[in-house]
């Protein structure tokens, strides 16, 4: 296991370097001058030139890249052009928010998606399957922003049960923090639940057809033991893959949901940064989420090995 992890980590290094080059060059290809945005309405040429010099935007792109990556290696991701806060501090501020949202959304998604998938596979072709499919499809097709605004109008404005938006740090008041994030997590989670339900269903269907399930049933095992212990456990490998990928995606920021519920997470940060051409922030975030994605993948591979003993020897 350790050797496997070590190998995967080594492979991750060139991937991260590639990501960094990619982000850096793509970003410079964007039209629009960061200094112009930075200058705001007053566009004094002397100030523009000064800012270009200060942020080294006049250097050749290769030099800019090595300056950035060199600093990044020492833990300095630069400062935000817009607010002058260090990018690393910004990431440190936003990451816990996004992780909390992602974890809560994922818990909701798993709690809905996996049982629904198991049930609809088990009851394939019945009305239960049909209902589960319709619910899943609507979960997938109802746009997040619409559901979000409708929920705000109903739950917050009409009923006054939950705050309409905002964020409360978990450390300040865990219960209130969860309460404030319930609606956005639900909006995100229902969308993901649909994806999970579809994957669980198809994985379960193929497992339920296999010989060992028939054998298990022939042995006279209780149906729920067959379903949970024999079938679901084997169907879990693809489900874990999807879940980790979804989690990775959530870490990159649930842009729309964060926008609607005004959650100061990665999504909002990166969107604002792109529109303001706040290069250092975009680069820092993409690099971080890239690393997070790779890490999640390694974690998924490790999870396979835990779940499926046959993969441990590979």
């Amino acid at each position, binding site marked *: 296991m350790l050797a496997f992890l070590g190998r995967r980590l080594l492979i991750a290094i060139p991937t991260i370097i590639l990501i960094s080059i990619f982000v850096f060059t793509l970003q410079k290809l964007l039209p*629009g001058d*960061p200094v112009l945005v930075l200058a705001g309405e007053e*566009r004094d040429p002397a*100030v523009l030139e000064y800012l270009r010099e200060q942020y080294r935007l006049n250097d050749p792109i290769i030099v800019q890249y090595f300056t950035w990556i060199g600093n990044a290696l020492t833990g300095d991701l630069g400062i935000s052009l817009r*607010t*002058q806060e260090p990018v690393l501090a910004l990431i440190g*501020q936003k990451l816990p928010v996004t992780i909390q949202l992602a974890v809560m959304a994922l818990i909701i998604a798993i709690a809905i998606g996996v049982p629904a998938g198991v049930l609809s596979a088990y009851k394939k072709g019945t009305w239960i399957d049909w209902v589960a499919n319709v619910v899943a499809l609507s979960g997938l097709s109802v746009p997040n922003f619409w559901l979000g605004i409708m929920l705000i109008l109903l739950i917050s404005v009409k009923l006054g049960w939950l705050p309409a938006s*905002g964020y409360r740090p978990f450390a300040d008041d865990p219960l209130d923090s969860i309460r404030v994030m319930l609606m956005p997590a639900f909006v995100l989670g229902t969308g993901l639940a649909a994806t999970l339900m579809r994957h669980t269903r198809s994985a379960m269907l193929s497992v339920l057809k296999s010989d060992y399930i028939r054998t298990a049933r022939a042995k006279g095992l209780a149906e729920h033991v067959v379903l949970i212990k024999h079938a679901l456990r084997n169907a879990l490998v693809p489900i874990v893959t999807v879940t980790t990928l979804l989690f990775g995606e959530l870490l990159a920021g649930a842009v729309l949901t964060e926008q609607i519920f005004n959650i100061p997470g990665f999504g909002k940060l990166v969107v604002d940064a792109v529109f303001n051409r706040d290069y250092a922030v975009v680069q820092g975030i993409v690099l971080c989420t890239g690393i997070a994605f790779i890490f999640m993948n390694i974690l998924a591979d490790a999870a396979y090995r835990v779940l499926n003993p046959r993969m441990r020897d590979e």
Partner: protein
Amino acid sequence: MALKKNLALALAFGLAATAVQAQDLRIGLQDDADVLDPDQARTFVGRIVFESLCDKLVDITPDLEIIPQLATGWEFSEDGLTLTMTLRDDVVFHDGTPFNAEAAVYNLDRSRNLPESRRASEVSSISGVEVVDATTIRITLAAPDATLLAQLSDRAGMMISPAAAETMGLDFGLTPVCSGPYSFVERIQQDRIVLERFEGHWDAANYHFDTVTFLPIPDTTVRLANLRAGDLDMLERLAATDLTSASADASLETAQATSLGYQAMTINVGNGERSGGPLGQDARVRQALSLSIDRSVIAQVVFEGAVAPGNQPWPPTSPWYNADFPIQERDVEAARALLAEAGYPDGVDITVQVANNPVQQQVMQVIQAMAGEAGIRISLEAKEFATLLSDQTAGAYEASQVGWSGRVDPDGNLHQFVTTDGGINDAGYSNAEVDAFLNGARVSNDIDARRAAYNGASAILMEDLPLVYLYHPVWIWAMETGIDGFVPYPDGMIRLAGLTLTE
């Protein structure tokens, strides 16, 4: 007797209600502010935060008159080259540093000389500032500058603690220290900015909230939903289309003020190759375009009437408006005749770039339809704002739909856009007469002479039309019922003096 008792009870309750009134005022902003250093800041919402955080040398009235704030009085010398200001003697910064002539000189020098200063161009007429005595400063000007006091009523006139500025350097904006009615507590980017009442403020009795929290919520629907849900006490920039429903809501109140700014189409008349088309080369084509537009239709269709139609850099209600050139009626026949006279009897094709937000695109679609009837076929190019801006600066456009947030002094709405060396002359317009008028208006302190100069310039500009003005946005604030004493200002700021909230 019973009546008296009841009255006394009611009074007691009333007092109790005032005593325990909402300690925190939560204000929803459309954007997140940028760096909170008055010399480096550039966003509109940043100015709203500064309004509570930092005092300025002078302030404005809703009618745009300059009134004292930290400066108690001022006087220009006969030749207009010296401005002497007397200052309050009871002001301290949030860190305890006293405010005095020395601090004021430090601040004006910082605005002028800090390399990162965005204020340098606003105070470029100043050639020197010196301390006369503890409460008097003397500002020397390189040339008379009629706009200076207006500049000092905004960020250029904001006073920050010299001690804090020295220690923090360029990071001052992370924990700003000023002398305003509220002091800085914390900021979480894109989430909140929290200020608390500064007991040492010279006018502290006039500020009634213990804390003020600014919450950036960019989506207008969500911002309004938060107000309705009671998570906000007030918000700025209610969408015009939400005005009817907000006014009908008994738990909400709204306030409005016509802004100092405008929305217009900037025409490329001399900024590189793209100015070579009929629109850029022939003023008659631009006049035809302007004539083809019914500005009140834009106001009704897109904004449900909540903007002021306009045709000059300042609104028709402004004392600077040139009454000889009222908004023209739409006249399709006259527009066609002008096109034919210019040699385009079959009409012209033009491309207009517009920011990719729904409201500005709707504005342009309405114009597209109206101009089309006059034979001006518009194709729209929707661009993300940063791209639009750099294309406009570089001259990579034929016409561009953009706006300006507006300035207190008329100079700020016109000079830099149409004078030959103007900093934002993206149209590439150049006319020696206009230059002379506008440069003259800048150096005169005589209102009538200034008005004559602006009228002279607008007479030419209405012919040449390097900018086709469309309308003046209206600031709309919405707040919960119970907020009293809110005064709408045309600069769109939120001034908290005298504001109370009874729940």
